């Protein structure tokens, strides 16, 4: 049994069905990537795992416990953390306040964790008094990561972390993600840049129309001729 499991998830927006018996799982210290065409339901999987969208059927298991009935906030306090694709910072608050808000639910001293985030992203320390809306795209992404890390999560969910950033920043973000994984966290991310993402992934899911089309290690998927032809541009 994997650390986080979404089993046979079925979900819809109103009457529009999005997910049909879709399953994903990720272990601690593992990076799993969900790729697939637009509208395949990639982000919906994340929303269901987080409890932001209720699944019609299926279950979400964390460390062997069924958390399907928990609210988003309760799942956060159980160790899930999420970095949304857009609107992932508090724009009119400073970098430091963003981090403080990330640690909102913690009762203990959060300064140690703030220091750890600064150690991981030194530029944020220099900009700690600046408003998040004044930062560049890459820096803002680091604030978003930092905010999510403030709960000391055991699993990070990332929704298209490299959307709309330059190739250089993309490499930087991927290397940040590997750091997070190597620190022992489970990382599950949805990615548009399928080729690059599968390259660094331990495990990959190809989602089409809300169904698991292909599953395998990152390497297997890249070398799978069908996946290459359909999703990686040959």
């Amino acid at each position, binding site marked *: 049994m994997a650390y986080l499991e979404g089993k046979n998830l079925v979900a819809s927006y109103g009457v529009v069905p999005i997910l049909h018996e879709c399953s994903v799982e990720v272990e601690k210290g593992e990076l799993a990537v969900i790729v697939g065409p637009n509208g395949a339901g990639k982000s919906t999987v994340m929303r269901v795992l987080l409890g932001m969208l209720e699944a019609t059927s299926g279950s979400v298991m964390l460390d062997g416990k069924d958390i399907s009935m928990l609210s988003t*906030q309760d799942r956060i306090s159980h160790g899930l953390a999420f970095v*949304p694709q857009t609107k*992932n910072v*508090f724009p009119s608050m400073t970098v430091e*306040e963003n981090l403080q808000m990330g640690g*909102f*639910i913690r009762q203990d001293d959060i300064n140690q964790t703030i220091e750890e985030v600064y150690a991981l992203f030194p530029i944020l320390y220099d900009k700690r008094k600046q408003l998040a809306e004044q930062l560049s795209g890459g820096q803002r992404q680091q604030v978003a990561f930092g*905010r999510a890390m*403030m709960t000391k999560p055991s699993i990070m969910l990332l929704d298209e972390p490299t959307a709309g950033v330059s190739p250089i920043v993309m490499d930087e973000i991927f290397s940040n993600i590997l750091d997070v994984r190597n620190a022992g966290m489970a990382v599950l991310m949805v990615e548009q840049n399928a080729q690059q993402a599968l390259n660094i992934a331990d495990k990959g899911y190809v989602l089409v129309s809300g169904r698991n089309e292909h599953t395998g290690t990152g390497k297997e998927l890249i070398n799978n001729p069908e996946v290459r032809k359909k999703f990686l541009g040959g």
Partner: protein
Amino acid sequence: MTSDSIDIINAFALLTNFVILPALSYGSQLALGALAVTLVYSVLRFSNFAQGDSMAFGTMIVILLTGFMIGRGWTISGIPTALLVIPIAIVFTSMYLLTMDRLIYRHYRKIKAKSITIVMSSIGVMFVTGGIVRFVLGATAQKFEDGERFIFSVREFKAYTGLEQGIAFKTSQFLTITIAFLLVAFVFYFLQKTKTGKAMRAYSDNKELALLSGIDPDKMVQITWLLVAALTTIAGALYGLDKGFAPQQYHLLLLPIFASVIVGGIGSPIGAIAGAFLVAFSEILLTYAYKKFLIYLLPLSMHPSSLVQLIGTEYKYAISFVILVIVLLIKPTGLFKGKVIVDE
């Protein structure tokens, strides 16, 4: 004084008595109301049309409690009894506003109604609240100020300074300016420095991310209403102590309050306060009759024969309205770069 001399000191004393002090206290009252509107707008995402009538509601409680206290003889000499009962009145007003939220606004939040729908429902709350106040107290004006009326009166000021033109500093003005200053300082400290205040700003900034950070939306909404109740009750009570209580007057305060919020920049607390003083000073400066002021300043040959009043006091609400129109035409984001209302 000899009638052809130029007398700057007396002119300034005159202006202080009839313009500066009244505008400072009126501005402070508007500022508290405007801050309440700003908080509701930032956190709950709607323009609260019930603000003026909620102030009347809070003041109604203050009046009832003041009557009760005076009836029992529970007063402290020199201090307006209204001041003593404000904390209890805030509790009642909080309960009323939280009840309205539970009965009405919560439903619209739940179904994610458009902002304009919630604004319309707040107009309903406005009529209901106004109705309750008139039902309980009647529609006529009343005064509820007791205790010492002046910090210093015109006569005392004249005797002390020897000036021809006196300045009176009313207790209500002193209380208004002091309490408003302290309350605004508290609200800013709360929003900037405390964990709950920051969470409120975070919730206002990005609701979904606030939820993901474990910030409880229901709690944020409740705390907002508690702050709004405090601001509303105190603003209403201070306005009533200063100018007397009349439900219609409070209802009409909505216009200068909204003008303040928009001039300052919607959603900006500091803007709401600056806007309030701008509106207050505009209203009073434009409706003041400058005849006596000019007589002090000009040589005899130039003394005005008319009142030199730019606009009649009966048009004072038109001033707020004109300011509103000008700002929306020229700089819709206001002085402090607030938001432009769009329906999300």
